[in-house]
């Protein structure tokens, strides 16, 4: 579904991604973790070309991003993305947030888009808030709306960029619950997150990044199983986040 091939990226002289290669199969859930500044957010933003890269290629569902002829908006419409800071559109109601791109990008009728939006809103447990503006919702609620907004486009894959890092602790679970449910339904997912509980529960593979490179890329059982077999950097990282 996603094939990342030898991707490198520089900001000026500074290399943020170094020769990253990995795959995400259809129906697979891959968790990307690593210390801040390790390039994990940059990597996931490269997957729907929100960030350009200078070397290598990423192929999403058969479409090459390095190919200059690729219609990027069209590709992005098929890739759902959830951001750390939700990025709901504050000047629109929740329903409008869910329907705007369906109508303007996919060309769906207003009635069809609204029906779809409300169904997804019900699924994330927020149907009662349909008429509100994002500013009237809590962080957890906003992030659930953001997930519904991405799902409304019927994406072939979902990307999550630290979806729970900006949330109060008590709201983390309501968002993770939606993500777990999504994973169990077979959605292909690539998630940048530090929620190791989530990784243990639903991930198929775990990728560990450090200083712009993929250091570990292995099955979940292997990653959490024999810690002594992990790289020095991954051991330090795991020791820090699993301590409490």
């Amino acid at each position, binding site marked *: 579904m996603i094939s990342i091939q030898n991707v490198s990226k520089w900001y000026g002289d500074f290399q943020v991604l170094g020769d990253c290669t990995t795959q995400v199969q259809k129906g697979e859930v891959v968790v990307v973790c690593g210390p801040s500044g390790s390039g994990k957010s940059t990597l996931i933003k490269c997957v729907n070309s929100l960030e350009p890269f200078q070397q290598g290629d990423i192929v999403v569902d058969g479409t090459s991003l390095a190919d200059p002829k690729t219609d990027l908006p069209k590709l992005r419409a098929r890739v759902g993305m959830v*951001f750390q800071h939700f990025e709901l*559109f504050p000047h629109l109601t929740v329903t409008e947030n869910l329907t705007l791109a369906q109508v*303007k990008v996919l060309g769906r009728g207003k009635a069809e888009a609204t029906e779809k939006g409300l169904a997804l809103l019900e699924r994330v447990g927020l149907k009662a808030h349909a008429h509100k503006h994002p500013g009237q919702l809590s962080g957890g609620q906003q992030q659930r709306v953001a997930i519904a907004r991405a799902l409304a486009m019927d994406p072939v894959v979902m990307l999550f960029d630290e979806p729970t890092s900006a949330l109060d602790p008590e709201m983390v679970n309501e968002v993770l619950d939606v993500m777990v449910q999504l994973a169990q339904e077979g959605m292909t997912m690539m998630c940048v997150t530090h929620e190791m509980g989530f990784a243990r529960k639903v991930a198929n593979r775990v990728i560990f990044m450090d200083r712009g490179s993929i250091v570990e890329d292995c099955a979940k059982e292997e990653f959490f199983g024999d810690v002594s077999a992990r790289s020095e950097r991954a051991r330090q990282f795991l020791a820090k986040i699993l301590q409490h």
Partner: protein
Amino acid sequence: MDFSSIPAALPALWDGLQTTLQLLVLGVLGGVLLGTLLAMMRLAHNRLVANLAALYVNYFRSIPLLLVITWFYFAVPFALREITGEDTPVGAFASCLVAFVMFEAAYFCEIVRAGIQAIPKGQMSAAQALGMTYGQSMRLIVLPQAFRKMTPLLLQQSIILFQDTSLVYSVGLIDFLNAARSRGDIVGQPHEFLIVAGLVYFVVSFAASQLVKRLQKRLAV
């Protein structure tokens, strides 16, 4: 002081005020439109496009409005003759309007640019992640939010334009101030007419800026 001839002059003053208001409304609309276009150009990744817009803005902000008005009064008919090949009289109103639109666009551009830059980058990313093109993201997501934030500043600039429209006297257009002045001269009461004109400008501008203040408070919440 003798204000007795004011009532009889009201229709003429009203005519002048209408000219002033027409210049104001059309000038603001055109200025905001052109200003928004310039702002998008200044924010474009293409250096040439951005520099051209910057040159335009810096040029028009560096010369007096009075100069622009007189200049366009002579330049617009000349330019039209070059384009169409025949004499096309445009009149003082049209040439003044062009001057206002082009001059104010430089100021509106900077307001709009600041407004766009005040919108978090993530909004553009989110719109594009949903498959919207750059144009759609701008039009549907960034600009509506930016304009909401800028409304007080745009109105403030419009109040300044309201006062600046009086400069059209230099090319003989009868706006409100010019109407008051010529009427005052005709009936021999120039001071009284100018006092009334000043009062009208004050009341309109002051009321409008009070409105802006209240709007600012409401939008701040």
